[in-house]
């Protein structure tokens, strides 16, 4: 089974404090640590587990520039067989649709049975997977939290839906799935592993090599553009209690009682 995972390098938001920069047009990126998007990492781990069980290889691809190579190396250290950096100046400023267009061209040049992406990245758009599937005309399932290979032609997938329930469907291969965090427990990748893959060549196909018309990607073709970042003016919000802890506790107990919480 040939598996492709489409990944992205993002600022690590779980610990980082995201602040606006002084110009107000971007976030402050100076002190940020970047890593592979969390759900993409789960997707790679899932791909590795599937390949280990059923044979085949795992390719991790990203659309970007030099800086993005590090996530490919990390995933190769994790066990991915190939890393591909799809890079071209023409791609700069692409919106989600543009990225999906590039990825679709890449997929058409190869033969992949299964394509995985993470559910969403730092912008929370949750779009590339679904768009890619539609461009390739492959069936799609999002929020996947379990995969079972039924045979060479189809899978059984579980999707995370409301209330913690799981929707189980059968889906034909080749297909695109967006993977939700928590589907597995990704293995650890240490510095040693990364050093061991440090010199493996990573191909960098360009727009021309993939037969992409530059007019369909990049800033000019982007239909959705972010104008700025801002932090909304805080509304009235909560009534903040300012007394001592004891006073606050007393007030809380009274409020709970008043609202019918102390029966």
């Amino acid at each position, binding site marked *: 089974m040939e598996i492709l995972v489409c990944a992205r390098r993002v600022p690590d938001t779980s610990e980082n404090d*995201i602040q*606006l920069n002084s110009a107000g047009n971007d*976030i402050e990126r100076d002190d940020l640590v970047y890593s592979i998007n969390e759900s993409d990492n789960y997707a790679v781990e899932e791909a590795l587990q599937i390949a280990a069980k059923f044979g085949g290889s795992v390719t991790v691809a990203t659309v970007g520039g030099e800086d993005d190579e590090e996530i490919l190396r990390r995933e190769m250290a994790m066990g991915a067989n190939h890393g591909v950096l799809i890079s071209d100046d023409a791609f700069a400023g692409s919106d*989600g*649709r543009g990225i*999906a267009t590039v990825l679709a061209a890449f997929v058409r040049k190869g033969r992949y049975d299964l394509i995985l992406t993470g*559910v969403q990245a*730092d*912008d*929370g*758009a*949750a*779009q*590339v997977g*679904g*768009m890619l*599937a*539609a*461009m390739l005309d492959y069936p*799609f*399932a999002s929020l996947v939290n379990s995969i079972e290979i039924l045979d060479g032609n189809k899978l059984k997938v579980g*999707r*995370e*839906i*409301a*209330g*913690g*329930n*799981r*929707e*189980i*469907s*059968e*889906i034909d291969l080749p*297909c695109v799935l967006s993977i939700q965090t928590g589907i597995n427990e990704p293995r650890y990748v240490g510095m040693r592993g990364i050093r061991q893959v440090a010199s493996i060549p990573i191909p960098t196909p360009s727009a021309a090599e993939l037969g992409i018309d530059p007019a369909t990607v990049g800033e000019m073709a982007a*239909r*959705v*553009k*972010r*104008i*700025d970042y*801002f*932090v*909304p003016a*805080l509304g009235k*919000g*909560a*009534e*903040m*209690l300012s007394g001592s*802890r004891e006073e606050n*506790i007393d*007030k*809380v*107990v009274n*409020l*709970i009682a008043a*609202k019918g*919480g*102390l029966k």
Partner: protein
Amino acid sequence: MARIFAYILHKAGVADDSAAELISAARAIDPSAPLTAIVTGFGADLDVVCSGLRASYAEIWKISNEVLAYPNAELIRQALVKILPAGCVVLAAHEHFGIDLAPGLSIKTNASFVSDVIAIEGIEDSHLKLVRQEFGGQVSAHVRCDIASGVVITIRPGAFKQVENAAVNGIVVDKSSEIGALTARRRYLETIVAEAGDVDITKHNVLVSVGRGIQEKDNIGIAKELAEALGAAVSCSRPVVDAKWLEKSRQVGSSGKTVKPKVYLACGISGSFQHLAGLKGNPFIIAINKNPKAPIFQVADVGIVDDILEFLPELTTKVQEARGVSVK
């Protein structure tokens, strides 16, 4: 002006709250544009939903087909592609179905796509200005979207006001025959219901809810004691479940349970929208968090900046005194 279509989610004959929210969103785009509800399904339930929508939508397109009895985004997308006019605006709720349906739909109809929108500012020469959030809700962004060839927009549930009374008498149009043959390359099998767990948090009036701020599994006991003193139950946000400190059945949020308590104590919860999405019915929210800038303080009724690991045990003692229970 392009037509606006709102995709309606429903269950057991009742339309989802988002149906009323999509109307606000549509009005924010263009109050004068014709708004049509699209409902897919099968059988009596579908008919009930459609007739119920007549009070708020001027036109309701009903698509009834046995294969659509369970909402399968792959099939519904094919159906919509067949019946939607070019260049229209499609609105849907940003939840598990919308995430499944919308991006692909935008490609198939050659429309633009923007997801998880929290505010719409209006149209400016075939560009729509909207507001989204990024980085887990830490910053907001103004976004400009070219809608010349149409747009598919998913809106965040709860971000737009519910329009209670649109005072219309809508007509139901049956579009079932126009969808043609649908190829099912994804086939629904079953839904596995989440394990009941020992406690049903949806049945409690008071919830003591813990988030990442509880810091470790052993501290959950502090919340349990308070819950016991209050006759309440312990619930939590997603990170607590991911860390396996509490079972999934305790999670409040978009991927967890929806609760409607009278009183909700948010302890060490930052207040992400996914969590708040599970809080319905306008409960009285008391938030305690070490971080004065935590988003929860925007939505809570009362806020206290304090360390929950110290605040809660003292609160428990006070509650026990108030109830006349002997302090251990």
